[in-house]
C-alpha cells in the first residue's frame, strides 16, 4: 500500500517497542493489515517485550486495586467488536487518548467469525510448537514453588539462586524434554523435565492431598533392584510439589510416598509411580 512498503516491513520490531513516532505508527498499522508475516512477527515481538516488562515487575502500591476497582465500576465496558469487514481493530471507536490503543492490532483473518466468540478463543488453539516456550513457563512455576519454600523455611537467597541456576541450567539445556504423566494410584499428574541423557530431572506434581503436619512427600528412584531415596518434594503452599532428581542411572520410574518430613531410608509402603 505504501510506496515505502519494504521499509515499513522492517519497522515491526520498532513498533512493538513503541519506538516509532505517530505517523510511522499509523503507517505500520496500515501495513500490518495486509502483511501476515508482519502480524506474526509482531505477536512474537510483543510477547518478547512482555517478558522484558515482566522482568521489571515490582509490587504495586497498596491501595491501587481499590482505585482501579472504583474507577472500573463506573466505566462502561465496550461490547465485543462487531465483525465488520475492514474495521480497524485498535484505533476505532476510541475517545482520543492516543495511549489507549495498546491493542492496535489488526484482527486475524480467522479471528473475526462472530462478535463474542472472539473473546473466548481458547489459548490451546494455538499450537505449542517446541520446548522453549514450555520451559519458560515451567521455570516460572518452579520459581513460585521455590519462592514459597524459601519464605517458609527462611532459607537464604543464595541458596535459592543456586537452586534457580540449577533449574535454569536444566531448562535451558538443548536436549531437555518435557513429559506429562499420570501419578499411579492417585488423581495427581506430574510434569517432568528430563535432561537429554535423562540423568537429571525436575518433577512437578499437582493434585496430591496436602501432607499433614510433620509429614511430607518423599521421592524414590525405582529400578529393577528396588528403591533409593531421591529426596523430599517441596510443597509450594498452593498444592504443587516440586523436586530435582539427579543420578537416575537407569531408573525408569519415580516413586512417591508420604513419610515423616525428615525422610525415610526406605519407603514405608508401595509408592505411587510416575513413568519417566
Amino acid at each position: 500500500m505504501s510506496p515505502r512498503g519494504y521499509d515499513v516491513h522492517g519497522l515491526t520490531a520498532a513498533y512493538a517497542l513503541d519506538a516509532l513516532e505517530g505517523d510511522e505508527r499509523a503507517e505500520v498499522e496500515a501495513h500490518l493489515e495486509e502483511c501476515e508475516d508482519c502480524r506474526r512477527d509482531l505477536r512474537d515481538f510483543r510477547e518478547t517485550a512482555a517478558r522484558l516488562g515482566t522482568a521489571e515487575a515490582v509490587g504495586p502500591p497498596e491501595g491501587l486495586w481499590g482505585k482501579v476497582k472504583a474507577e472500573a465500576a463506573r466505566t462502561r465496558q465496550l461490547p465485543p467488536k462487531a465483525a465488520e469487514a475492514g474495521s480497524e481493530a485498535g484505533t476505532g471507536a476510541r475517545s482520543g487518548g492516543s495511549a489507549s490503543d495498546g491493542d492496535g492490532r489488526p484482527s486475524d483473518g480467522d479471528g473475526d467469525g462472530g462478535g463474542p466468540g472472539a473473546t473466548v478463543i481458547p489459548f490451546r488453539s494455538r499450537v505449542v510448537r517446541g520446548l522453549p516456550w514450555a520451559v519458560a513457563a515451567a521455570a516460572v512455576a518452579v520459581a513460585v514453588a521455590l519462592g514459597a519454600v524459601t519464605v517458609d523455611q527462611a532459607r537464604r537467597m543464595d541458596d535459592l539462586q543456586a537452586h534457580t541456576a540449577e533449574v535454569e541450567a536444566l531448562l535451558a539445556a538443548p536436549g531437555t524434554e518435557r513429559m506429562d504423566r499420570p501419578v499411579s494410584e492417585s488423581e495427581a499428574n506430574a510434569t517432568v523435565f528430563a535432561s537429554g541423557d535423562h540423568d537429571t530431572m525436575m518433577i512437578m506434581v499437582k493434585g496430591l492431598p496436602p501432607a499433614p503436619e510433620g509429614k511430607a512427600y518423599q521421592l524414590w528412584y525405582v529400578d529393577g533392584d528396588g528403591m533409593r531415596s531421591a529426596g523430599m518434594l517441596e510443597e509450594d503452599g498452593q498444592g504443587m510439589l516440586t523436586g530435582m532428581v539427579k543420578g537416575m542411572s537407569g531408573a525408569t520410574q519415580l516413586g512417591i510416598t508420604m513419610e515423616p518430613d525428615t525422610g525415610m531410608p526406605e519407603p514405608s509402603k508401595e509408592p505411587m509411580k510416575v513413568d519417566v
Partner: protein
Amino acid sequence: MDEALPSRASGRTGADGLGELLARASLGDMEAFEGVYRELAGPVFGTAARVLLDHAQAEEVAQEVFVEVWRQAARYDAAAGGVRSWVLTIAHRRAVDRVRSEQASADRTSRVGRAEPQQTPADEVPEAVEHRLERERVRRCLGRLTGLQREAVRLTYYAGYTQRQAAAALKVPLTTVKGRLRDGLIRLRDCLGVEA
C-alpha cells in the same frame, strides 16, 4: 513429549487462566477482573515505573491501564497474542506516550542515562520470586546482545526513546538503529524462548 499446557502444571494463573479471567471480566465480573489485576499488577506497575522513573506517575499509569483493560476486555483478540502481552503492550504504550509528552524535561533525560535494567529495586515478597527468575533470565539474554543492540533496546523499551532519538543518542545512522533493534529483538525472542 506431550503437549499439555504449562499453565496446568504451574499451579497458578497461567495463560489459559488469564484468558478465562479476562473473558469473565469482559462480562462485568469484577472478581475475575481482580484476578487479572493480581496477576499483572506487578509487571504493569514495574514496566511503567521503569519507563517513567517516577513512582507516582507509574501508579497513575497502572491505574489507567487496568481501567482500559476493563473497558476493552471484550475486544481482546487471543489470535494476536496472550493476555499478558496485550496488557503489557497497553502499559508500555501508555508509559512511553507519557514520557514523550513531557520530554522537554531535561531532568528526566539525565536520570535515564543512569538507569540500567539491573537497577530495578529488588522486591522481596514471595510472589515476586517468579519475577526475580524472569529478571535473571532477561538480564542473561540482554547480555548476549551486541553492545549496540542492547543500547538500542534499552533506550527504546526502557527509556521510551523513539528509534530516531536513539540513533541521535548513540550517534549512529537511523538505519543502523532500525537494524539493531530488529536483530536485538529477534535474538531476545530466541534467547527467551518466546513461542507465541
